[in-house]
């Protein structure tokens, strides 16, 4: 392993011009360094003007997603030593407007996330005095995988449907809706279905499957969407053949 490595970092500073440019930085390459550590080295020792997001450095906060050599990744979970001899090309996540350097505007995602009501909905809340809503380990397992999402938006960056149709509600928002739908304590399925059964909801997805491949938390948003399609279709058939039995 070489002891130095070159990072080609995308720069966009709206005051400096309307174009994205690339700037090269040669930095030390330590075995235990992630790509994020490399960026932090640049920020601390070489160029303090570089802008990017990060927080936890341990794959929890979901804020350090970037394109590393063309692949959307959590930079705190991608090691420089796995990037060959370099150069390592670092760009902001694709499919989002860029605010500055490696920072993208996530307001579209935040709006979509709220629209699927990712919280436990109850028809009638029981009083606190009646205690908590209990759940068996099996019931917990039903939605656990989808609850691992850290909102890193790496799946949106990999999704060509979102790139082509920005109205598409997107993989993570649907996976999170499914996380609550499958929760035995939740009663909000019908409310979420109203949002998700629209064309920009589940039906926009053509099952490219890339979101599942790139997800750093093995959430399988593509699986969530296909399962949702199946239950939406069954729901429609039930209400068609059994209008009184359907919702």
């Amino acid at each position, binding site marked *: 392993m070489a002891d130095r490595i070159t990072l080609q970092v995308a720069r*966009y500073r*709206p005051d400096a011009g*309307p174009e*994205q440019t690339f700037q090269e930085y040669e930095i030390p390459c330590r075995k235990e360094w992630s790509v994020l550590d490399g960026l932090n080295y640049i920020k601390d020792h070489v160029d303090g003007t570089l802008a990017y997001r990060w927080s936890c450095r341990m794959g929890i906060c979901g804020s350090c997603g970037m394109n590393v050599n063309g692949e959307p990744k959590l930079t705190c979970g991608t090691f420089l030593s796995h990037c060959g001899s370099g150069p390592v090309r670092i760009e902001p996540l*694709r*499919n*989002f*407007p*860029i*605010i500055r350097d490696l920072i993208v*505007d996530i*307001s*579209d995602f935040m*709006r979509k996330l709220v629209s699927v009501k990712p919280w436990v909905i109850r028809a009638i809340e029981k009083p606190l005095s009646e205690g908590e809503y209990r759940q068996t380990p099996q019931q917990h397992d039903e939605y656990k995988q989808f609850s691992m999402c850290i909102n890193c938006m790496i799946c949106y960056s990999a999704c*060509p449907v979102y*790139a*082509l*149709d*920005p*109205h598409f509600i997107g993989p993570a928002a649907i996976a999170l809706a499914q996380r609550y739908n499958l929760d035995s304590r939740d009663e909000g399925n019908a409310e979420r279905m109203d949002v998700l059964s629209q064309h920009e909801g589940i039906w926009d997805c*053509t*099952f*490219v*499957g*890339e979101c*599942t*491949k790139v997800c750093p938390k093995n959430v*399988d948003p*593509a*699986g969530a969407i*296909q*399962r949702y*399609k*199946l239950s939406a279709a069954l729901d429609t058939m039930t209400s068609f053949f059994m209008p009184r039995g359907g919702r």
Partner: protein
Amino acid sequence: MSTSPAQQGRNPRLLQPTISMGWWLQRGTYFAFMMRELSCVFVAWFVLYLILLVRSVSRGEASYQHFLERSAAADIVLLNVISLAFVVYHTVTFFNAAPQAMVALVGTRVPGALIGASHYAAWVAVSAFVAWVLLGG
């Protein structure tokens, strides 16, 4: 160029994302997806071909003979070989995707590999039955 609805007409300081016409050539997985979409055309061709076969049979022997002769022509053979390749690809990608979309419960959750394997088993069984019928069983 494609802009997010959240940003349309908003901050001109944002650099908006763009997507090229050749986006599907940029990654192997995107290309594989587009080929899967394209395979639907060949599935449709096989359906049409079957309908034409049934129609020729219903019109009598001469019509059926003509259908067989036409089917043996190089252009149709080539089209059918290409179609077969695409239909097999369509089937395999569909079966591989099935465990992701289906959650089967038989007491506990059926493992995805078993769901996938059962699709292939059904494929083999149906193919064996068709072969048995065709070979005069």
